[in-house]
């Protein structure tokens, strides 16, 4: 039964991806490029393994913050809060890292963990705001998180333009961090480094936390059956706040790792819709950490392929990548419409596969 459910989920996700690709074929048509060729270029721009820096490495590097913001959004989903404040948490985590990295004078082995913890704490605190507003006052979390994201973006613009500004040059940006605390990158210029391993580690920890610990059990119970949880003596408000703190902390860490491992400073326009991408990752990944990991790499690949492949070599606007992602989410959202057909197809497929399996067994027995 459980296998069938998971199978169904995967089939629905796959059909959403197929439908998204089909519709984007229509959108490629006015550019006059063959859609097959476009998708070939998109794929090689995303997961290709050639050239000086393989596109695959860049994709993995780009996927790192997505994995983390996806995990952050997933915590919210699991506990039943549709929070989209990851963008703001990410921004504040990054600001914290850029500020402490320049201000604190500590040996690198001590400084890096200090910065990470500070970023996690500030991200978590920022994540607590919509949670408290939701739990204590009943404010719609989506609207409050949108406002918080806007506040964070403007705060970043202000801080980068005035107090944290490094020089009076054209671009508003903070000072570069000392090289001793830069996180190691596996391939130079690929953005793929230690942060990726940390993200994977967090995926595993999240899995263990949600499914193998009592606190994780409480979390799932509050999300799935709040009344049952309350009846069972779980303090659901407390669980929601705790979970949102964890989620916010992870998003804050994402910002911190981007600064330490990648940009080494913050500048205007640092946040670029990453929060919404994290949300999409969590939705497409079926709110499961391993799903989040896979989908984050896929989405990063689509964005990367659209930039490197489509825009540069075929002159198709790179927004096609974003369109494709949005279409996939759209088709996941409206799965109820085409689900009956997929269901029928899936059960037919299962029958056929089991028939083949039985025949194989028979032939083996005969032999």
């Amino acid at each position: 039964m459980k296998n069938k459910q998971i199978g169904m989920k995967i089939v629905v996700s796959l059909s959403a991806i197929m439908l998204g690709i089909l519709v984007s074929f229509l959108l490629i048509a006015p550019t006059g490029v063959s859609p097959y060729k476009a998708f070939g270029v998109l794929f090689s721009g995303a997961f290709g393994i050639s050239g000086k820096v393989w596109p695959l490495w860049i994709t993995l590097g780009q996927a790192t913050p997505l994995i983390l913001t996806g995990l952050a959004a997933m915590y919210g989903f699991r506990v039943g809060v549709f929070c989209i404040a990851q963008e703001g948490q990410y921004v504040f985590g990054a600001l914290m890292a850029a500020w402490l990295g320049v201000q604190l004078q500590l040996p690198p082995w001590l400084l890096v963990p200090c910065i990470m913890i500070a970023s996690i704490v500030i991200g978590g605190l920022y994540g607590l705001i919509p949670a408290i507003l939701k739990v204590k006052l009943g404010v719609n979390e989506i609207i409050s998180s949108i406002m918080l994201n806007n506040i964070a973006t403007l705060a970043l613009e202000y801080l980068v333009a005035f107090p944290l500004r490094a020089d009076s040059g054209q671009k508003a940006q903070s000072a570069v961090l000392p090289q001793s605390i830069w996180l190691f990158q596996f391939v130079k210029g690929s953005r793929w480094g230690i942060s990726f391993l940390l993200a994977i580690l967090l995926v595993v920890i999240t899995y263990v936390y949600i499914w193998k610990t009592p606190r994780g059990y409480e979390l799932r119970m509050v999300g799935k059956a709040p009344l049952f949880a309350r009846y069972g003596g779980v303090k659901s408000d407390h669980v929601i706040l705790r979970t949102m703190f964890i989620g916010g902390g992870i998003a804050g860490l994402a910002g911190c790792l981007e600064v330490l491992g990648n940009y080494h400073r913050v500048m205007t326009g640092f946040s670029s819709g990453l929060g919404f991408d994290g949300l999409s990752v969590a939705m497409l990944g079926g709110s499961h950490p391993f799903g989040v990991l896979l989908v984050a790499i896929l989405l990063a690949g689509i964005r990367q392929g659209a930039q490197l492949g489509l825009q540069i070599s075929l002159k198709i606007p790179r927004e096609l990548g974003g369109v494709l992602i949005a279409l996939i989410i759209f088709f996941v959202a409206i799965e109820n419409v085409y689900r009956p057909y997929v269901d029928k197809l899936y059960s037919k497929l299962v029958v056929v596969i089991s028939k083949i399996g039985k025949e194989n067994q028979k032939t083996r027995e005969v032999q």
Partner: protein
Amino acid sequence: MNEVFDFFTINLASSSIRLATPIILAALAAALCNKAGVLNLAIEGEMLWGSFVAIVATFLIRNQTTLGQMHPILATYLGIIVAMIFGALMGWFFAWLHTRHHVDLVVLSIAINMLASETTVYLMRVLFKQSGTWSDASIVQLPPLSFSLLNRIPIVGQLLNGYNFIVYASWVLVVVLVIVFHKTKYGRYLKAVGENPNAARSVGISVNKVQHWALISSGAMACLGGAFLSVGHLTLFTRDMSSGRGWLGNAAALFGFNNPGGSFFAGLFFGIADAVALRLQNVTKIPPYIIQIMPYFLTIVILSVVSYKARMQKSRNALH
């Protein structure tokens, strides 16, 4: 003293009304949906699409039809109507998905908002080869209307005169919605469906029909607000033109307890805050970011108060 007076000129008042109009329209759209018990968070995306469709339709009508070539202003009006029809169709599509297939509107809204911001930029780049802003010299802005009756009243007349059609349409819509909510059968049905759909269904009200109409008209209103941005105020389209006004509209509807009048004043308040921020930027040396933050900050504070009050009200009602 003189400076203070300069600051609060008629200019400021009229610019706040201009800035408030799209927010008011979005707020009315959101309030109507909230009343009907469907949380429509896609207003931001609908607005963005509305502004894109309005300017493209205006451009096509202006240059491709003889009617448009002869009457440029008429082309703009027709473009706005096309955008509203587009919005209504979109609302109908949402309603169909929601009532027929039980699609979760929150997830759908997130998808629609993303889709709107990506497709408009993509289409702008493919169709018009522009990456940031697109405009065409042939498109004519909505003309300001002037009523001679209003001109006779000294200060108020000056304040209320000289806006374009959409501004006045938004005011009329407020009045119409107040009448619909309080004086018609549909308004009573709307209230019943929003408060308890099952009870409404049990007395023979068609919940589907009520929600259909709410979503359809809110789509049209959101697109009208979007059209105000692209062909009403300026004649250009920029990437992410709605820039959060739809969300502010959602918030404004909640401030106004989902009443048309309340939403109107909440939207107007946002407009005034925007205009003051713009003005302060010119007059003082306060960094613009701090002023720009204020509306969002205020939104959170006011939303907290409003939600807290609503919750208290609910628990008090439960006691009796």
